[in-house]
């Protein structure tokens, strides 16, 4: 008979996890859909009661989002304007039911190429805090989500929180999602961006990430660099195909590869235009 544990105490959870063989469960919104045809007899470690994984709040260094914070709590939290894209992404994750249960940490650990949360958090320079019985480590998000269903999580490790550095919380944020229907839709392409202006009104910094066009969502570093010092109005026109060279979309039932490339370009341009308005 399989076991189920839902500890409050992080040490207990980490000791349990260290034994190996446990499946971590948070909001359940990815866990159960992967087990539709029959129940599995896995041992379940439910992390939703862990105090250490809760809450959204300021730290001295920026913003901390507990891994077990739900997308609803992201929507409801008072966050700086740079997080508008993150909130927009939260509103696009499933329907209200999914937003009420699905967690930020779960979205990252599930590592779907189409995870709406990943590009939004990449555009905020997110870092993940990983805890284990052996200690704590931090990784930039792009070194945590490595590919389709692939993360840097080690056995015995738990994602405890996501940290957004103070520097990333300045400016405006946007998230654009392309799907074939209005609600409950897996993204064909999504683009997240933040933009911060210098005192003279030129672009001081932009962070842009594209999802569902590579195995793991990707920052557009070359484009970000090219935009520094430009007037925000010029930003969208500065985009050229070279900036998107790292995208390598696949074809699936939602769209073919050329379509994903083409619409990624459109959405990046639109995201920049929207950011220019908002910044």
């Amino acid at each position, binding site marked *: *008979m*399989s*076991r*189920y544990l*839902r500890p409050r105490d992080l040490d207990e959870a980490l000791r349990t996890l260290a034994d190996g063989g446990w499946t971590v*469960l948070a*909001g*359940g*919104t990815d*866990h*159960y*859909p992967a087990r*539709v*045809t*029959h*129940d599995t*007899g*896995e041992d*379940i470690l*439910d992390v*939703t009661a862990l105090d250490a994984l809760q809450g959204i709040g300021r730290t001295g260094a920026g913003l901390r989002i507990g891994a077990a914070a739900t997308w*609803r709590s992201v929507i409801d939290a008072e966050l700086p304007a740079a997080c508008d894209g993150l909130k927009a992404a939260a*509103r696009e994750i*499933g*329907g*209200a*039911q*999914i937003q*009420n*249960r699905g967690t930020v940490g779960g979205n990252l650990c599930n590592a779907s190429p189409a995870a709406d949360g990943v590009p939004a958090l990449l555009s905020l320079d997110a870092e993940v805090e990983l805890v284990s019985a052996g200690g704590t480590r931090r990784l930039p998000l792009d070194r945590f989500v490595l590919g389709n269903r692939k993360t840097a999580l080690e056995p015995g490790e738990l994602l405890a929180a996501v940290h957004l550095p103070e520097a990333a919380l300045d400016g405006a944020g946007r998230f654009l999602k*392309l799907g*074939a*229907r*209005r*609600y*409950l*839709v*897996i993204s*064909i392409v999504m683009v997240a961006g933040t933009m911060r202006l210098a005192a003279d009104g030129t672009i001081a910094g932009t962070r842009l990430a594209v999802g569902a066009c590579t195995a793991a969502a990707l920052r557009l570093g070359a484009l970000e660099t090219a935009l520094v010092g430009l007037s925000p109005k010029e930003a969208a026109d500065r985009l050229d195909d070279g900036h998107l060279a790292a995208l390598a979309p696949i074809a*699936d*039932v*939602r*769209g*073919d590869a*050329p*379509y994903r490339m*083409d*619409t990624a370009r*459109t*959405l990046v341009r*639109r995201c920049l235009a929207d950011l220019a308005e908002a910044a």
Partner: protein
Amino acid sequence: MTATLTFTVNGSECRVDVAPQRRLSRVLREDLGLTGTKVGCDAGDCGACTVLLDGAQVCACLVPAGQAEGGEVVTVEGLADRDGTHSALQRAFARHGAAQCGICTPGMLMAAHDLLRRNPQPGRAAVEDALGGVLCRCTGYLKIVEAVLDVASNAPDTEAPAPGTAVGARVARLDGVGKLDGRDLYGDDTTPADALWLRVLRSPHALADFAFGDVDAWAAAVPGVVAVLTARDVPGHNSFGIYPTLKDQPVFAEGFVRYRGEAVAAVIVETRAAFEALDLSGFPVDWSPREAVVGVEAALKEGALRLHEASPGNVLIRGRVASGDVDAAMAGADAVVEAAMQTGFVEHSYIEPEAGWARRAGDRVELRVTTQTPYMDRDEVAHVLGIAQEAVRVTPSVVGGGFGGKLDQSIQLPLAVATWKLGRPVATLYHRPESFAATTKRHPARMTASLGVTRDGAITGFRFHGDFDTGAYASWGPTVAGRVPVHAPGPYRVGAVLASSAAVYTDGPPAGAFRGFGVPQAAIIGERLMDEAAGRIGMDPLEFRLLNALRAGDPTATGQVIEASVGLAACIEALKPAWARYGEQVAAHNAKAGRTRLGAGIGCMWYGCGNTSMSNPSIMRLALKPDGRLTLFNGAVDIGQGSYTIMAQIAADALGAPLSLVDQVWGDTDLTPDAGKTSASRQTFVSGRASELAGRDLRARILRLANAGEDAELTFDGGRIVVRDAAGLRDLDLSVLPVDGDGHLLVGEGTFDPPTAPLDADGQGTPYATYAFAAQIALVEVDPELGTTKVLHMTAAHDVGWAVNPTLVEGQIHGGIAQGLGLALMEEYVPGRTENLHDYLIPTVGDMPQIDCILIEDPEPLGPFGAKGIGEPALVPTAPAILAGIRQAVGVCPDKVPVLPHRLRAAIRAAQTREAAE
């Protein structure tokens, strides 16, 4: 590991010993008996299981029960007051006709309840956001949204109509109460506790030979396995199919499978828990896959593998309608337009998966299953078991949506074989991927057509051929092949017609019945040609259709002269103001720079009600009881469309009794006479007429008893009927009259079989007794850079003969439009790829346009009070109107439907490339 969990449900504390990782939905339904919470997907894709947990809506299928520990759960059973009085939200749903089949209703109610607790007077956008996570396949969502917006008004309930005025009244569903408080019992809601459970083993390959390994050893090693059944366990015939001469599908395949999802064996386990844990991945079967025949092109190719011995060239059957000299007609045209188009498999996606149970009672077998066709189920079970039809009893559960998908056998035959052999009740339930893979689909069509037109707008000729992919087995393929050529020319005066079809076997899933039987596909190309022809002669598309619209007295391409109830011209006329408004909106919007372009389009349709040139009778009985109440024996299965309600409305008015006196015995092959299938938009017309005749028959019997004249007026007064005519008053005391063996005083019976005549080799004859007509227009917004389309507004004018219940008719139109929108823009079943409700997309509340319905009432003399069908007609013109709107907005539209964003974007880019080259 089980644990004792404590939480409150609907205000009462409950303790339950369960595995904490068990889905909350299962704990509620199976451990606590609260079956009002429905399960449609177990994956958070449909929202049917929505409940409140700690004051917020959640999918109960995604919540481990352990997370409810110490919490507060509210289910649909908790919405009403303790005395059963419905809440303002439930009453608003009843008033607005917001529940059709009712399977999504608990989820919708809970999602709305969640919203209204935070925001008692929400706007439309907030309502859509709140309901966005619940799928509905029947209603098109609009009446649900209207209901939620109207909760605060706390308006009074719909009034009961006065005697004799039920027909035409907006009567609230008579079977509505149980849909709103969770008491209605669907396929998975009445399983006996001692039932065995059955899971079908299915082919993972589209074409393969197979052999079983050591099944006994596997069965012995897997906990709870009672038996494994295969083809050799079928006691009668291991075959089934819609047509008596085409029973080409095995209950369990014998060494060879023709589609992914085909049944090869059934595993029977002791308990539901064992069923839920049953992992068939280790079942010993050796597959030898072969290269599958995918699509009609491959199937028709010279030398293609012959999939059925009796069908050389893989052609199951052909259909043909020929009238006049079409070559001469084309030669005489001023312009000829032509097109080629394709559609894909479409899945019915009823939110209730197949579920039910069967038991053997001596030499009889009884089934309680979700079905559209209890009598056909009865006959198929008898055939497979090799027993008399009378030895089988089928009682439908409440049906959580059908749309044609529950017109075929699914769970019935394995259940019957299992209970027959094992002697114990046996239950089953398909999971969503199984429901998708195993059951029938809409036929993909590959069509070519051309249309000739003169400068002054006359249609000289129409030529059509469609190859319809009927998949691995015949199912309803012949119905599609027969219906399509009749309807393909559209509801127009056409000089000469040559329309042909073929139903072609492939290794796809069996394509069967789906709302429209091929007519929606044919309308997509026919209506496109109407637009292109109008364009060639410089006519407005609406005016061109009006000019050519069939009118009473016109002959059709089958040589039938439709004498009455041809309301198409009235429908088109009624659309003119909205058409003009759409045109202005398109012009104004497109004159501005912006990311999107608008377009408007029109689609028209006709649809023959009832079977094509085949007898399809319905029998209804209306009985009078000593207490003055009436029982309608109604075999017309209500799958959400409302036949339960309108049959009573019709019978009550025909008799002259208050609707409130009518009780019903519903869809039980032992008790209700055969009303035929709920298909082909026939129940309102055919069974409605039978109900009318039953009511009149009972009235005649009462009058005879009272020795009163034809024009007498009846007043029902408890156990008395007062009969008043010119000769005076008679008071019938029902309590002193003799009753028959069933406790009835008098029984009226009505039988109606619509008059048709066979079609000859050229398709000449009278295929249908009456036709429904409709015209719809759509205003769409396209984002050309993304290829996405949003339908903003639709106006739908439908000639329904007479609207027995306008609220229900509007509900059918809204729901038909939703399915037509899905067909046009998003729905495509790809075996192995889109076998769930997140890869296979159906419209959500946020995808629906605003819809104005215009009901045209051009009475059908044969119909009950003039009524004819609406179920399928509602869907047929929608996709053509949307596609025309896209074409107007961006100048192109792909030849392949659905117009997925990437397909539209590719068409736009190709057009841009062509333009640049010119």
